[in-house]
């Protein structure tokens, strides 16, 4: 079977009024169904339990979903069911599995307006971002379906007379997928689709902030034809995730989230428990502290909108978001003044209003954290722009700010703040900037504004980040075009949406057959 070449699912053309109207209708349709119920889904069973409320980050009174808070026992039950089904799923032909993923993609495509609306409501994503989330989820399904087919053909190995060598890839078994809330559809879909496409069975533990989006991912996969026993949904908090990590029947853990939780998971997974007869593999995609370097020849007309977009869209709650700008001292004043002016025009407001740049933060804890860092910024540096939200207090809003003049050891230059706070530093030159980038433990994304091809080359050669963007915004990696993932403490895995991602979900098996019999090659 061959599928047509992969193409990215087009994002909606929001510049057309009729397209915006369709999204608003999607929102109205969703709102009639709220609150959604999200049970744990284990095999055919739907298990209710203690509840976990998912509320609209823009309005704490609005309950988006009433989810089950899965327990450690639920986690073990889920692994048991999935583990029992893993063999059967692995023996389904790769072609069939690929077709199932494509049908899941089609299911999402048919509901894309409502799915985007759910992202808006549950995670406070502005429309364009929410729509891109849906499109990326579809992309992962389409991309990994194709990748798994290619992988199923095995690897080519050397052959010499008298022996036949064959290398193929087999599923590893049960994959626990532990996802963050900030790409509530795309990231869980990507990790789960990769596991399923390569013949693993999966349990999804969505973030506690986005259980309803997580449920949609499992719904889509089941609707496409993944047997209910082969994919389970385990809504809940960190403890449910931790229980999955500990379970000896889990083979692979695909995690995306913060560096601290990632390190914890890696440590917990390293321990061989009970009758466990394998080493767990952890794929961990973690946080960042992403820097944008601006050289003296940069075009500020382009650099500034790109920086502002990278730092503030979705309130800076992307792992790829810009946190620091390292600007050549020759143009630093102009840049500071113009960034401040641009930040003052940011639209802070409800995510469902077209044109909103900065929506609410995900939850109260995030708001507290960002406000704390914002205060620290004012204490340690000079705030050059602070755009206050002009919305009522029912959501987790916070100001968008820009700070400069921080001491080199400021926590603001080191910690992942994950909010709309951007630090700007003057550097002597690009080398100076690179030294600072190299001193960071994170290496996820980075940006460079510069028009000298030689400088571009040398920065690309020295920069440690997983994804370097030159003369553009540094967020919005596209499946197949910008395989995505960090280095250092930002990630341990191969790039998501890239050619080698699936290899992490399989194990190689090589068969060598002697074909020499009495001097005859048979």
């Amino acid at each position, binding site marked *: 079977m061959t599928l047509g070449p992969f*193409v*990215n*699912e*087009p*994002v909606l*053309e*929001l*510049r057309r*009024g009729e397209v*915006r109207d369709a999204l608003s209708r999607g929102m109205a349709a969703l709102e009639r169904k709220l609150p959604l119920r999200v049970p744990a889904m284990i095999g055919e069973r739907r298990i209710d339990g203690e509840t976990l409320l998912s509320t609209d980050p823009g309005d704490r009174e609005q309950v988006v979903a009433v989810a089950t808070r899965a327990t450690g026992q639920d986690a073990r039950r889920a692994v048991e069911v999935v583990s029992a089904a893993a063999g059967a799923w692995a023996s389904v032909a790769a072609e069939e599995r690929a077709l199932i993923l494509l049908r899941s993609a089609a299911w999402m495509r048919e509901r894309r307006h409502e799915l985007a609306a759910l992202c808006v409501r549950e995670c406070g994503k502005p*429309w*364009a971002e929410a729509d891109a989330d849906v499109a990326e989820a579809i992309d992962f399904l389409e991309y990994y379906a194709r990748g798994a087919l290619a992988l199923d053909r095995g690897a080519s190995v050397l052959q010499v007379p008298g022996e036949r060598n064959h290398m193929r890839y087999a599923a590893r078994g049960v994959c626990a997928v532990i996802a963050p809330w900030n790409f509530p559809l795309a990231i869980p879909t990507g990790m789960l689709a990769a596991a399923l496409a390569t013949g693993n069975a999966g349990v999804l533990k969505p973030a506690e902030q986005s259980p309803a989006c997580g449920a949609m991912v499992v719904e889509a996969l089941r609707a496409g034809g993944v047997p209910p026993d082969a994919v389970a949904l385990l809504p809940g908090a960190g403890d449910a995730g931790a229980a999955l990590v500990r379970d000896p029947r889990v083979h692979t853990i695909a995690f995306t989230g913060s560096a601290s939780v990632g390190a914890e998971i890696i440590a917990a997974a390293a321990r061989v428990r009970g009758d466990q007869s394998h080493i767990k593999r952890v794929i961990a995609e973690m946080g960042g502290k992403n820097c944008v370097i601006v050289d*003296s*020849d*940069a*075009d*500020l*007309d*382009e650099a*500034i*909108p790109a920086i*502002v977009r990278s730092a503030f869209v979705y309130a800076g709650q992307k792992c790829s978001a810009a946190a620091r700008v390292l600007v050549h001292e*020759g143009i630093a004043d102009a840049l500071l003044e*113009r960034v*401040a*002016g*641009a930040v*003052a*025009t940011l*639209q802070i407001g409800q995510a469902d*209003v*077209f*044109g909103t740049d900065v929506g609410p933060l995900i939850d109260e804890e995030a708001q507290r954290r960002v406000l704390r860092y914002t205060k620290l910024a004012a204490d340690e540096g000079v705030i050059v722009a602070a755009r206050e939200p002009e919305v009522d207090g029912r959501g987790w809003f916070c100001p968008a700010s820009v700070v400069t003049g921080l001491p080199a050891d400021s926590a603001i230059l080191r910690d992942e703040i994950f909010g709309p706070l951007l630090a700007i530093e003057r550097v002597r030159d690009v080398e100076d900037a690179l030294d600072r980038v190299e001193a960071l433990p994170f290496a996820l994304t980075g940006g460079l504004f510069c*028009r*000298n*091809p*030689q400088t571009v080359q040398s920065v690309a050669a020295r920069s440690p980040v997983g994804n370097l963007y030159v003369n553009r915004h540094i967020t919005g990696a596209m499946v197949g075009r910008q395989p995505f993932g960090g280095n250092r403490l930002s990630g341990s895995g191969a790039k998501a949406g890239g050619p080698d991602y699936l290899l992490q979900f399989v194990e190689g098996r090589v068969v060598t057959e002697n074909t020499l019999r009495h001097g005859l090659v048979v």
Partner: protein
Amino acid sequence: MQSPAEREILEVGSRLLTSADSSVHSPVRAIDKRALERASQDAELRTALLRFVDVAPACRSPADLAAHLIGFLGELHERPLPLDAAMRMGSSKAARAALGRAAAAGVRHVAHRFIVAEQPGDAEKVLRSLWSEGVTTSVDLLGEATLSSQEADRYAQRCLDTLDSLAGIYAALAPMPQLEADSIGPIPRANLSVKVSALTPLLRPDAPELGERDAMPRLRALLRRAKERDVHLHVDMESFDSREAVTELVLSLLGEDEFRDGPSAGLVLQAYLTDSPELCERIVAWAERSARAQPLVVRLVKGAYWDHEVVDARQHGWRSPVFEVKAECDRNFEALTVRLLKTRSHLRAAIASHNLRSVAHAIVANRALGGQPRDVEFQVLRGLGDELQRALVREGLRVRTYCPIGDLVAGMAYLVRRLLENTSNQSFLADQVRGRPLEELLAAP
């Protein structure tokens, strides 16, 4: 067999072409032409030169300029001899500085062809001398991108000041009856073109109301001043992302009672947009209903953002909003020309093109529809349409030349667009330079 109209177009077009050609005698022009020809034939070289022109004003020193130039040239697989020599010059410090200075002079030279002056005050000479040749203008203020409210206010203030100074400059000039009225009535002498993207930092493709609301008070202030000073105010059209906001903004402001008696104002219709016929109908309907004393001026263009629109749509997987076959765009331009000319009593058509075929077609269509020569305005860009401008004046037609004013840094985006246009292999001007036969140049698209 050619239709009578086609024969007439060929005849008018040939006359314009001969007349335009005979006005070229400057040796500098000849060199420019050769350089442009060379650049339009070699895509890599064209890219390298455009990248250099683009970065030139941001370079800190001649040495920095030279470093960039060498960087771009270093990426070429094949270098024309003089450029190869330039690369080798980069070896010593003094030579690099000299190379940088020479390159800077080159860029300034090219820029001055398209940009009339750095400050409105310095443009007076050019505007006056054009007037005396029988040509009026529309002034355009180049500027950096507007990213903040302060920058929008500053641009609006520059526009207000320019409205005042243009009114002053033009009031002092001798009468030029053929430029000052058409069959409908008087036409203001002075004319300013403005961009909505410079009047607000909030043009958002997914929220047109936002930009509209934010730009409205600034544009209203400009309209008031334009009315006071009797200067025509024209709102340029930009990329498709902002079309809805710009169209709604202009039509809603011009519909206000306050502006019923003036100023004269207008907007732009881009024929490369596949849905431009619908927009044209909307504008025509608006104009027919409108009670404005001075009819809306509709400037018909093909569109200056073709490459951007195509790439943007490709990157997003969208259907392209523009025609992708040049002949379709050209045919649409002619159809829209006719549609606008037919609405003569309610709106004024301005045909903005350097394509002799498009221009000759409009001349003939106007005549066929019973219009006087002065009933249609022809518009050209400074530096691109200079020869055509003279030829049109000789034909007794009403010509307006679009004159950008601004410094080099601000002008770079404009300059690169013009150079792109000039060296594109789909461009009429490049065809003309390449010496394509007259019949082909003037054939129906």
